[in-house]
């Protein structure tokens, strides 16, 4: 029961809404918890035990740290300055140990379920290469849905409690809802406790505004997923599935098609998720902000899967940046290596683990690790050449905010994105390099208009639906980029105009979506991460 299925949108959500509204306000969060666990159970069955285990661990470590803080405060009152210092140190160490235990256990479970076979297959490869007779066997491991998402959320919560940025939740059920809230469990967004806890537990009554805005957001997501993404999945499947048979512009088409498919699907799913939250008055953070308007690779990642980037920034980049070793390097570097090199090495030290983890988080494959390293190298290159680039722009009298320069930068970023996604989607790193190399052989752009595209599994009508769908999404995105979000403006319009727009969107989904006869249902891509 993915978020894009009729069962979720037209049965699960309405039943949940009715039960939620019938409950007294103080019990509504319990209704949400019940449906969240039911949803998880329907998807993962007995693997629910992993979520319960992660919740218990997160909850009790948070509660223990909170209790330690209270003890610390008690001991500190009346103590002299020297004793205060040692008391603080003692409790900091205790809390740090608890945090480390929590993180290690959560990461341990994730690593075991997600990376064990990858690790074993690589070890086996090395042993085989060394002609050693020992060959450890791979295991058939089942991963509960959303483990990559709720694990990060749980670690974020514990770190925030440790840093004093969040107050520990003292009710187990509420922690369970924070980690298992059904609209976000499959694909995120990865929330901070302080961002969602308030609205999750408020038990706000249903309102016409939330219901209409929520459901319209859901339909907008369905439009992206079912009209565009699911059709592009056909072309993507044909070329990536038979990549040795294609070359030149076909590979470029596959890279662009997959990027657009991934965007339409993931952002569409986020629209459904955020819309689902909105129905209950829960404001979930945005995960996309017009990523194709980005002018650089780093800006792209501030607009694409925002909550993952924010998580890595908050819990890896900043802690590494302010760690003792980096601080010491900064002091040493300023004296001996100069400002430029010091800054470059500091950035590299903080960004390397971020991009390594970003790659690994997506899955246990070398191509994902390559994907992370690809962005690490590009962003570091951007940082390295920035002084020279600024000088060149100044010499050539090119203004950063000029239209044509902006277009050039966006086009460059598109190329970076498309190449990255080509490796990301390819069936392994070797296949990725094969496809990348074959792109430069026999490149004929004429396939875009000579009918060759019709041999990739989609007819004229489907291609037209994809094109029109992309134009609609691009226009709405560009209006939003200019500060004129159409959905916000729509709320302020008169009822006939608003309802007219709602009906148009609903009918567009019903008529143009790729469902029913002749179409295969396409599973959510990010739910597999």
């Amino acid at each position, binding site marked *: *029961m993915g978020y894009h*299925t*009729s*069962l979720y949108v*037209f*049965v699960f959500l309405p039943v949940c809404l009715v039960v939620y509204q019938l409950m007294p306000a103080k019990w509504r969060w319990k209704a949400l918890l019940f449906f969240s666990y039911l949803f998880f159970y*329907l998807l993962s069955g007995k693997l629910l035990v992993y979520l319960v285990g992660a919740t218990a661990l997160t909850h009790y470590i948070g509660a223990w740290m909170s209790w330690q803080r209270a003890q610390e405060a008690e001991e500190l009152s009346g103590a002299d300055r020297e004793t205060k210092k040692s008391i603080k140190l003692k409790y900091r160490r205790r809390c740090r140990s608890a945090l480390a235990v929590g993180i290690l256990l959560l990461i341990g479970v994730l690593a075991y379920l997600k990376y064990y076979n990858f690790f074993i297959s690589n070890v086996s490869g090395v042993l085989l290469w060394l002609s050693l007779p020992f060959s450890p066997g791979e295991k058939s491991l089942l991963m509960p849905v959303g483990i990559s998402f709720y694990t990060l959320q749980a670690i974020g919560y514990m770190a925030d409690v440790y840093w004093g940025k969040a107050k520990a939740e003292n009710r187990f059920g509420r922690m369970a809802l924070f980690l298992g809230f059904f609209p976000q469990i499959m694909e995120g967004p990865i929330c901070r406790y302080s961002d969602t806890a308030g609205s999750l537990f408020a038990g706000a*009554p*249903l*309102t*016409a505004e939330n*219901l*209409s805005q929520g459901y319209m957001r859901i339909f907008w997501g369905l439009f992206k997923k079912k009209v565009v993404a699911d059709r592009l999945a056909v072309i993507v499947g044909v070329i990536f599935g038979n990549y040795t048979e294609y070359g030149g512009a076909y590979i470029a088409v596959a890279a662009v098609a997959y990027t657009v498919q991934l965007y339409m699907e993931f952002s569409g799913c986020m629209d459904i998720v955020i819309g689902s939250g909105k129905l209950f008055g829960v404001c979930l953070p945005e995960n996309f902000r017009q990523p194709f308007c980005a002018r650089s690779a780093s800006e792209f990642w501030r607009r694409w899967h925002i909550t993952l980037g924010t998580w890595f920034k908050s819990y890896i980049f900043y802690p590494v940046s302010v760690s003792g070793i980096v601080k010491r390097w900064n002091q040493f570097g300023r004296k001996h290596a100069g400002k430029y090199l010091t800054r470059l090495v500091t950035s590299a030290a903080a960004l390397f683990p971020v991009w390594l983890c970003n790659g690994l988080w997506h899955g246990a494959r070398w191509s994902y690790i390559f994907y992370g390293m690809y962005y690490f190298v590009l962003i570091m290159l951007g940082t390295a050449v920035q002084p020279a680039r600024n000088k060149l722009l100044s010499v050539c009298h090119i203004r950063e905010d000029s239209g044509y320069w902006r277009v050039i930068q966006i086009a460059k970023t598109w190329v970076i994105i498309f190449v990255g996604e080509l490796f990301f989607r390819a069936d392994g790193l070797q296949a990725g390099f094969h496809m990348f190399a074959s792109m430069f052989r026999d490149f004929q752009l004429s396939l875009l208009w000579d009918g060759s595209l019709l041999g990739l599994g989609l*007819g*004229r*009508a*489907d291609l*037209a639906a994809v094109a029109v769908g992309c134009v609609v999404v691009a226009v709405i995105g560009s209006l939003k980029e200019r500060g004129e979000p159409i959905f916000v403006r729509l709320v302020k319009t008169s009822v006939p105009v608003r*309802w007219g727009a*709602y*009906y148009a969107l*609903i*009918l567009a989904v*019903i*008529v*143009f*979506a790729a*469902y*029913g*006869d*002749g179409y295969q249902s396409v599973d959510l891509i990010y739910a597999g991460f």
Partner: protein
Amino acid sequence: MGKMLKKGVLFFTVLLVLLFLASIWISALAAGMADRVQGRNRPVAGITAEEGDTVDLLVVGDSESYTSVSTMDLWKQYGTASYVCGQGGQRIQEAYYMLKTAFRTQSPKVVMVETNMMFRDPGIFKNAQISLAEPLRYYLPVFRYHNLWKLLLDEPKEMTSDYKGFVIKEKITSCKGAEYMKETGEMQELPEFVRFYMRRIQDLCERNGAQLLMVSVPSPKNYNYKKINALRHYAKQNGIPYVDMNLKAEEIGMDWSKDSYDGGDHLNIHGAQKVTAYLGKYLKENYGLPDRRNDAAYSSWNTLAEKFDTEVKQKTGQ
């Protein structure tokens, strides 16, 4: 809350009216271009476009049905006006709503259910989804024919000839079929939702004055003794006549070296003609279906039968 409810009711009422109007328009469009509708919707559009009250025997089922019951042979030999509303991998829910659709314009005397679909269980989610989607498609056909707009843009595809739902398969892929019915007292479980929908089909037929008949066509890949035991038991329990042709394969004259087009899963035209001859005789003896061959209102059926003969000769070289 009251205001919100009123607004919500108004919104959904207008939406329903819009969907209803769109459904009327799109159904008329589909009936007008029934010969261009493809895939699972083809038999729905086909039976809807058929002249009212002309079909005496209606067949539902999965691909076993439309490859085994040769409507034109039934017509030529017995003058039976039959229509196969089969779909590849048809689910029982689809069969039920197919019949509901057919009963809107037709008054068949016999409804035949090919039983292979009765063992199809796609799982709880898929079942729930189909059980919700099928009534939606039935009451609001805009959901069924929503892709019709594509016919305006796509190049016309070559259509397979369709003889009142029957599809000619001339290829021969032989199989060792003789041993597949090994006697046993065991029974394969019939899924609960299948029983539920079969009861609904039975009620529907009763309400519409049609007699329900269960038929298992010969298929070494799909049938075995356990299934036949279960079907016999179910039919007896519910008072439905049941014809199993797997145990009568010899009597029918099945020759698995040349009667299947895919190695024992489906019948080809040779197998279909044998099965149809047996079935036609059974129907004549037990139901007395009218012979329409000399009825002027059915002249187009005679023309279609001639076209069928030509195509069979062309494809089989006989």
